[in-house]
């Protein structure tokens, strides 16, 4: 997040333009979560479509409430020891006046709080792609509540909160390469190392059931990502938000083309899933770097991330960990690439004057980026694995094997995504009337 721009003689006043822009950006970021749900939902098999959608959707419920109660306070309250924040006014959003401005900016605190809430919602949802088909819905819900509390809120403070260690060190993370993507990717790796593989991994075919849904989801992500990235300057008084918007488009296009080229050479076809995945890889990589690099730099960042992520998604077969939908391959690898490339491609003329190696800044910024990347990666990996282990030992993380094989949707949600009962328009199912209420039943017996 951007450092506060405070001009001593000229205290900021509310800007209607910036406030309106940020309200729209907040809504754009929210739509990324249903977008992600469809992106993931299309990639699983028919029998676990709804569970995949619900793992993202539930985040909009749980995290919103936690954010209001204490999350915003932990992430953006007054710093304590560079680790976590706390401000009692932010608890329950109770002490905030509607015209009170966020620290040195021209938008209300409420707007900042709701914009950041959308980030807090999508980050845990990102993890779910690695856990497809096999996690109890209650365990997942508990996991994201605890994960947000123990991992996301503090990490957001480290990276974006005044006083947070990474923020004070000068780590550049414009819109969440570290706090969102590396954080979620490392958490995904930590959890799957604890819970293990899907039944039939590497043996049964697990091809995506609906690539059109994947494309729809990727399109919504791309659209919403403009709010995610361009909004992260909290206004556009100095053009940095506009630079970010442009770079978002450029890097995404470059990454999509790079991924497609890689797979054409490697596998002989330009695949739909490759186009969608490449676009997401580019969006991930430009998220931390887009405020620091030039438009030509954005092409480089996108293209490098596109190829790296396309190569990385095969690693799970090599190493045998079952990252179902490649959260590690796309978000962790893409986030690390985008964050570290700042050390090379930062021009010094964007969000900060820190220049990278190719622009005469030496390796100084690169080392700072490494500290941010590996600090967050290590913490999230270990904390998430411990959390998953504890939940597994108490209520259990996984559904029974027979439920997994039959399909998690039926057991966990009492629904299925599609009605394939062809003959007679639904002959395979029948309606069970609701059970009579106790009072009515006893009356009938009396009569």
């Amino acid at each position: 997040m951007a450092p506060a721009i405070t001009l001593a003689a000229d205290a900021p006043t509310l800007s209607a333009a910036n406030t309106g822009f940020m309200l729209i950006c907040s809504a754009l970021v929210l739509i990324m979560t249903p977008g992600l749900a469809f992106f993931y939902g299309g990639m699983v098999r028919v029998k676990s479509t709804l569970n995949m959608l619900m793992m993202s959707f539930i985040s909009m419920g749980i995290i919103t409430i936690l954010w209001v109660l204490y999350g915003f306070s932990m992430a953006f309250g007054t710093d304590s020891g560079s680790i976590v924040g706390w401000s009692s006014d932010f608890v329950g959003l109770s002490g905030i006046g509607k015209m009170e401005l966020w620290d040195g900016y021209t938008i209300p605190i409420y707007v900042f709080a709701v914009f950041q809430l959308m980030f807090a919602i999508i980050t845990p949802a990102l993890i779910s792609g690695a856990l497809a088909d096999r996690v109890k819905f209650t365990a997942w819900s508990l996991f994201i509540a605890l994960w947000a509390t123990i991992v996301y809120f503090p990490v957001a403070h480290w990276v974006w909160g005044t006083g947070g260690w990474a923020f004070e060190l000068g780590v550049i993370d414009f819109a969440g390469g570290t706090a969102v993507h590396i954080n979620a990717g490392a958490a995904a790796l930590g959890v799957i190392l604890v819970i293990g593989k899907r039944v039939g991994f590497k043996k049964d075919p697990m091809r995506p059931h609906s690539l059109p849904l994947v494309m729809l989801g990727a399109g919504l992500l791309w659209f919403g990502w403009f709010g995610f990235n361009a909004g992260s300057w909290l206004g556009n008084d100095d053009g940095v938000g506009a630079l970010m918007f442009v770079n978002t488009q450029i890097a995404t296009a470059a990454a999509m083309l790079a991924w497609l080229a890689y797979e054409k050479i490697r596998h002989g076809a330009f695949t739909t899933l490759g186009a969608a995945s490449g676009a997401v890889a580019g969006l991930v990589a430009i998220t931390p770097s887009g405020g620091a690099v030039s438009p030509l730099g954005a092409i480089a960042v996108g293209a490098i991330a596109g190829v790296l992520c396309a190569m990385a998604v095969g690693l799970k077969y090599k190493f045998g960990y079952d990252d179902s939908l490649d959260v590690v391959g796309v978000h962790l690898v893409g986030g690390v690439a985008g964050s570290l490339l700042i050390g090379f491609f930062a021009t010094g003329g964007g969000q900060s004057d820190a220049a990278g190696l190719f622009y005469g800044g030496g390796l100084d910024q690169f080392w700072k980026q490494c500290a941010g990347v590996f600090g967050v990666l290590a913490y999230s990996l270990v904390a998430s694995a411990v959390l998953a282990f504890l939940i597994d030992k108490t209520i259990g993380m996984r559904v029974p094997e027979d439920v997994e094989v039959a399909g998690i949707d039926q057991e966990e949600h009492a629904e299925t995504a599609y009605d394939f009962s062809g003959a007679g328009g639904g002959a395979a199912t029948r309606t069970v009337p609701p059970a009579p209420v106790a009072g009515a039943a006893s009356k009938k017996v009396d009569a």
Partner: protein
Amino acid sequence: MKLITAVVKPHRLDEIKEALQAFGVHGLTVTEASGYGRQRGHTEVYRGAEYTVDLVPKIRIEVLVEDDDAEQLLDVIVKAARTGKIGDGKVWSVPVDTAVRVRTGERGPDAL
């Protein structure tokens, strides 16, 4: 009577229907089918993971005919179904004991 069954490429259906009509066949049954012969299936790639799809889409056409027509009709279907490429399918005929038209109760050749 004979039952002629053809399992062929779906996109040849129109040509086969036309050929059968020209020959004078009044009715037929078409079913969607899937299977493979010598050519096996094809390969699909999802994020680099390759899946072999063995069963490829086919259609199954069934026609009841009189004994005298059977041999000639096999040729008609083969001619209409052939593309010359691998996976064109198979056609065969088997004897049928009896056939009944449900509406009228007519039996044997009258039911055709």
